């Protein structure tokens, strides 16, 4: 009915946070004196970009599916479920169950992905360190 609205709301928040984090990271790079030993790390803004891409991508394709099924229409109030109070109640229930689960599952998958990505980068860092010591 309108379950995609919950991940859509999360996508907006994540995109805003991503922009702020990116700005603060750029400022931190500018203020660094350059003598510090550089550790290869995935910037948090990049990780947030993965999450926002997943959320936005999913929301766009789900919106298309809802248009396909006639649940979203191009005229006010845009959602056919808003036509009667009983359907609106069903829509809100679906948003609070399926919609919230969608947002949570995407975020959990993203968290696992970030953990895996950090492990892979650390593994590569360790390997290059060992190589450097041996040489």
């Amino acid at each position: 009915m309108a379950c995609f609205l919950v991940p859509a709301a999360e996508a907006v928040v994540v995109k805003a946070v991503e922009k702020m984090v990116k700005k603060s990271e750029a400022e931190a790079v500018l203020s660094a004196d350059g003598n510090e030993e550089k550790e290869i790390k995935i910037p948090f803004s990049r990780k947030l970009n993965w999450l926002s891409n997943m959320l936005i991508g999913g929301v766009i394709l789900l919106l298309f599916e809802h248009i396909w099924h006639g649940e979203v229409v191009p005229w006010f109030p845009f959602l056919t479920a808003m036509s009667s109070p009983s359907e609106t109640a069903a829509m809100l229930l679906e948003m609070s169950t399926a919609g919230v689960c969608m947002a949570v599952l995407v975020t959990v998958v993203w968290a696992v992905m970030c953990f895996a990505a950090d492990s892979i980068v650390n593994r590569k860092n360790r390997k290059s360190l060992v190589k450097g010591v041996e040489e």
Partner: protein
Amino acid sequence: MTLLITVFAAVIVTAIWYFRKNDEMQLLTLCFLYWGASIMWLVDAVFEYIGDGAAFFSPALEDMLNDTYLGLSVVALGLVIWIVKLLITDPKGSVRMALRKG
């Protein structure tokens, strides 16, 4: 069926992305697009299964055809979004060069 087609698209695009040396084609965008939708449809499928039970696995032929058509349309829409983004960001500068020539 829509979920299945999207998952297949996500796996294929991710494999292509992995075997390429660089991401000039911005395939990661397409990966996230399909994986995001796949996860959301998975949740949808779980809720449908909870509601319908075993009947969820034996859909009517007409529904299956409609879902297949929808799945293919979704994959096509994803590809269109990706190609438009690729042309706008123009990482290889090909569009810029072609426009300057013209």
